[in-house]
């Protein structure tokens, strides 16, 4: 276990896992956010389909439908450019963890309707902006995004981050000299 922790810490120190996670998760969320922003009413309709918020009074559902795509875009920018990394990663992680059970629930309802031969054949527009998707593929994508956003939250590295460049700090966040971190 100690050897494994040392290996993970050394890998983290290189900054490569974090950089990959930032670009992958940030890039994906930027793309999805822009798709949602190109047709805000489509996203509003999809949010309504999940029946999480009351249709009347409408302010909460309308406000969140308006705000969430911008939140995704701003968090994506934060990850890509490397500022507010933990906050952006945690926000994306929270959205994914909130959304995935809803997705599974809706897929189970679709499957129970008998319209699909198997659970992985269930296909519907989940409101992500990409139109209809197969549920298993969507869940696999979300699992990868969850892993990526966990890396951005837990990583100690600040390799190629605007944060570290602006503060002129070494590219670790634990306050120790780079050689001592993760030892």
């Amino acid at each position, binding site marked *: 276990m100690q050897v494994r922790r040392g290996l993970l810490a050394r890998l983290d120190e290189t900054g490569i896992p974090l950089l990959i996670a930032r670009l992958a998760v940030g890039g994906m969320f930027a793309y999805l956010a822009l798709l949602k922003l190109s047709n805000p009413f489509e996203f*509003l309709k999809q949010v309504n389909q999940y029946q999480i918020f009351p*249709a009347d009074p*409408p302010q909460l559902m*309308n406000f969140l439908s*308006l705000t969430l795509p911008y939140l995704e875009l701003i968090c994506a920018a934060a990850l890509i450019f490397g500022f507010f990394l*933990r*906050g952006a990663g945690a926000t994306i992680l929270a959205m994914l963890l909130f959304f995935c059970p809803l997705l599974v629930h809706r897929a189970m309802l679709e499957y129970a309707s008998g319209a699909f031969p198997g659970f992985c054949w269930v296909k519907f527009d989940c409101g992500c902006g990409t139109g209809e998707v197969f549920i298993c593929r969507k869940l696999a994508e979300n699992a990868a995004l969850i892993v990526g956003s966990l890396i951005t*939250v837990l990583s100690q590295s600040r390799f190629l981050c605007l944060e570290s460049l602006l503060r002129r700090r070494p590219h670790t966040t634990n306050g120790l000299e780079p050689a001592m971190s993760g030892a």
Partner: protein
Amino acid sequence: MQVLLRTLGQMIVLFAVASAVALTANELRRGGREPGRNGAAAGARPSNWIDINRAYFARRAPAPLQPDPASPATAPGHAPNAVAIEEPPASVPYRVVDLGTVRDAVHDPLYEVGQIVLIDARDDAAYKAGRIPGAIQLDYYRLEGYIERVMDAALAAQQVIVYCNGGRCEDSLLVCQELELRGIPRTAIALFKDGWEAWKAADLPIESGPAREQ
């Protein structure tokens, strides 16, 4: 603990910034102007402005439809004008018409003179890409650009048939509610539930491009 508080603080800042940007962008959309579309007056509101206070999906449950034996329009099995009707199921308070009925309505002389009106409840892109010939557009989410023209046509007609994509699409039902709220009698409103997908699948004639000037 410090890291946790800092992370929470960053999350709050990100949400606050996103909210501010979203509300500002929405107001900018509202404040901008686009040329009139589909015959709507110039200066109609831009297409993507979300009215925060509008209950887009609230179902205003109308009273159940009571058949009136004295009125031929609502007598069961009687087809008013040229459009056959079915008794509405409990979950849909409007008459539901099928593909054959809509096809017959499009060929009816009453359709040519505006006594039967077909309303397409889809957005601009879908409407221009292809629609039932002669259908006029009413985008439920961008009412201001369309409602005046549609109400003029609907008030002058004996029968209004509304459709959207079909399947899970609920926009046609929402448009039916909106028309009723604005004064079109429920007996004059019919819902083509199978919608555009059914029309297209049957290989029937379609129209595309901007709406014809009337």
